[in-house]
């Protein structure tokens, strides 16, 4: 497969955050079990800086890791050094893709997660949470000139953007919104709101505040709803560390440090006073349940009759996207191949440049450029248009090379035979050369078809939910990775295997009409 999946984990990019010094000297040794848990005196915390503002991100000016959670961790570790009498203790940031953080925790790539992670029931199967350090709610943002939308219920059927798998996503799904547009990053929904592709964006308060502050083209409307709490996540079996972290968090909260940080980042609201009462994840959940409209996940509710239709619909998207893109790719590919073979000098060079260019740039870059970049010059494509054009242009480069070699593989004598019968070059190509070349190209083309079925998973970056994306959403929501994964794999095979059979059937059928 020629494409790298964006979903590949970004392990390995480990940023050493900071070395804290000057902790108070105490003689008591830290509890033995925690010392064993953190043998090199480093507490590794997982998070995602990609679109991570204001939680954690690299300041574009200083290139330092900053964010309200960075401040929280800093205060937390300072407290831990005191609590454990362990002045060497350091915090180290581990970059991870946000949606994969629970898996990273389980794989021990880091010890704790501090990354705007919502405390829910469904996560508790594999993780445990400390008490909440922040209470979030969903903030609806619209364009400043928006007149029709005053609160969430006004956009029940409007295209409304949010982060895939986020609490806002869940909230709208639970309320059966019909036109949710999900993104992998949190900057993109606001870009598309500005470009007019969505009518509103619903996202957590910190994200909304960060992305709309100082931007007069946006306004916030409606009441805050969909309350929940961010907690620090740890492995289920990591009780000792969990207790220490929770106690340290309690101490800094009581000392007003959490409040101070939250105010510093401009995301404070009156509701944060509730944190004084919500001293465990269970208490938080009870409080959340008491708030109206806040959904909580339940793995047993995810039966095949629930996720099956969703997967099938996504498979339909994959098939439609593949066939439309391939039609574009085959058309452009043939034109490029013919230009390369028979065009006059400049046309030939142009065709070669096309092949080298589109073969050489990553598809992900092309898709992102078409969808998010072109609006800057006034061209706004829908996600489907961008996807089909992007895949079409990229695959056309590969198809062109297949056609070119297939055409060159037709014996020269066939041209001569056609010409001596009086055929023009165009007729000879159309009636004699192309039909033979097409048969040669059929095998490699089938390969590309199958490859494209899988490559279409890239379109999740431009908010189209196809089969792989739907699998990720469902699996992370239900935690049924194996069950839903097997069904997803089966669906992919049901697309690619018949295609292989069709190609072999045609090859067999045509082989009698070949020498």
């Amino acid at each position, binding site marked *: 497969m020629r494409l790298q999946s964006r979903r590949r984990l970004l392990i390995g990019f480990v940023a050493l955050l900071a070395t804290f010094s000057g902790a108070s000297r105490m003689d008591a040794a830290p509890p033995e079990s925690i010392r064993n848990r953190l043998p090199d005196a480093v507490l590794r915390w997982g998070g995602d800086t990609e679109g991570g503002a204001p939680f954690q991100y690299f300041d574009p000016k200083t290139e330092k890791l900053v964010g309200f959670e960075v401040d929280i961790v800093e205060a937390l570790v300072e407290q831990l050094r005191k609590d454990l009498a362990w002045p060497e203790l350091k915090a180290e940031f581990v970059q991870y893709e946000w949606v994969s953080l629970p898996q990273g925790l389980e794989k021990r790539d880091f010890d704790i997660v501090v990354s705007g992670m919502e405390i829910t029931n469904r996560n508790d199967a594999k993780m445990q949470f400390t008490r909440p350090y922040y209470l979030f709610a969903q903030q609806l943002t619209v364009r400043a000139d928006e007149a029709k939308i005053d609160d969430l219920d006004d956009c029940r059927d409007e295209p409304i953007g949010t982060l895939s798998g986020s609490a806002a996503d869940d909230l709208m799904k639970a309320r059966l919104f019909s036109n949710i547009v999900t993104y992998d990053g949190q900057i993109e929904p606001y870009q598309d709101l500005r470009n007019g592709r969505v009518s509103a964006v619903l996202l957590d308060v910190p994200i909304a505040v960060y992305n709309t502050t100082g931007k007069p083209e946006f306004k916030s409307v409606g009441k805050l709803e969909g309350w929940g709490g961010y907690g620090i996540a740890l492995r289920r079996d990591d009780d000792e560390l969990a207790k220490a972290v929770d106690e340290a968090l309690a101490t800094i909260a009581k000392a007003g440090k959490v409040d101070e940080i939250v105010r510093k980042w401009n995301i404070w609201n009156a509701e944060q006073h509730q944190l004084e009462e919500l001293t465990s994840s269970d208490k938080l959940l009870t409080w959340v349940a008491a708030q109206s409209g806040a959904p909580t996940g339940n793995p047993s509710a995810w039966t095949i009759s629930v996720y099956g239709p969703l997967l099938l619909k996504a498979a339909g998207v994959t098939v439609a996207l593949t066939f439309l893109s391939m039609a574009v790719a085959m058309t452009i590919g043939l034109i490029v191949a013919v230009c390369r073979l028979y065009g006059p000098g400049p046309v030939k060079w142009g065709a070669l440049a096309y092949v080298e260019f589109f073969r050489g740039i990553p598809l992900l870059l092309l898709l992102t450029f078409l969808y998010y970049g072109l609006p800057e010059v006034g061209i706004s494509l829908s996600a489907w248009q961008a996807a089909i054009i992007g895949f079409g242009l990229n695959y056309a480069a590969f198809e062109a090379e297949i056609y070119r070699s297939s055409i060159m593989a037709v014996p020269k004598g*066939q041209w*001569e035979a*056609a*010409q*001596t019968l009086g055929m*023009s070059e165009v*007729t000879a190509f159309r009636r004699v050369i192309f039909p033979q070349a097409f048969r040669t190209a059929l095998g490699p083309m089938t390969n590309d078809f199958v490859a494209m079925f899988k490559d279409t998973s890239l379109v999740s970056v431009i908010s189209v939910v196809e089969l792989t994306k739907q699998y990720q959403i469902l699996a992370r929501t239900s935690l049924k990775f194996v069950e839903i994964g097997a069904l997803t794999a089966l669906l992919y095979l049901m697309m690619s295997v018949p295609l292989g059979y069709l190609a072999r059937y045609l090859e067999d059928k045509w082989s009698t009409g070949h020498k």
Partner: protein
Amino acid sequence: MSTAQMGNGTLGAPLVELTNLVKRYHGRAILDGISAKFGQGEITAMIGPSGGGKSTLLRSLNGLNTIDGGEVRVGEYRFTPGKTCDRETLQAVRRMVGMVFQDFQLFPHLTALGNVMEAPVQVAGKSRAEAETRGRELLKRVGLGERTGHYPSQLSGGQKQRVAIARALAMEPRVLLCDEITSALDPELKHEVLDVLEDLRDDGLTILMVTHEIGFARRAANRVVVLAEGKIVEEGPPQQVIDAPITERTQRFLKNVLG
């Protein structure tokens, strides 16, 4: 165009004329000043050693080769050096001149009938029905009336070559170029193809064949031309050239071929 004696059916009228024809490859003269006339209805066998320029001469007649000197005239059309790329002249000449190749070059994706119908429909603009009727007649004539639906891969070499002849005839050419059309065939299959050629002699078709079939040349040709080292070394009726060659070069060649 006074030299063009067109369509009068007279044996010996120069339908095709070569004047001092020169063709070079990498500086070497493959055809070194050839002058010859080929009359309407005449069958000319071209013999001679390999590399003597026989195939090159044939390919100069329908523009598969460009030429480097002299002139080729086919009917009213002329090829001269630098003028051979003229598309209209090329098309017109190719409509008049059919060609059959040593390695058949049938279109593998079409049936025997499809091969024969393709040019009449695509080039001559005939209706499919008309082209099909004519195609079936031609295939019957070459003894393949029962094989119209077969693909080239399902036919023997002799059958393929007969389809190729029918395909060339479907465009109703006035000249047929045959480039060693029996060389790729098993000995027992050659006669099928040669029989077909002999059968065509009475149609008034001008045939130029490059061949190694000396016996057939003697029986079927009006004229034999011996080509060696890019020059015509001897020409005349077969009885003269084959049975009583004058030049040493022809004698040597025939001795080698006939053993």
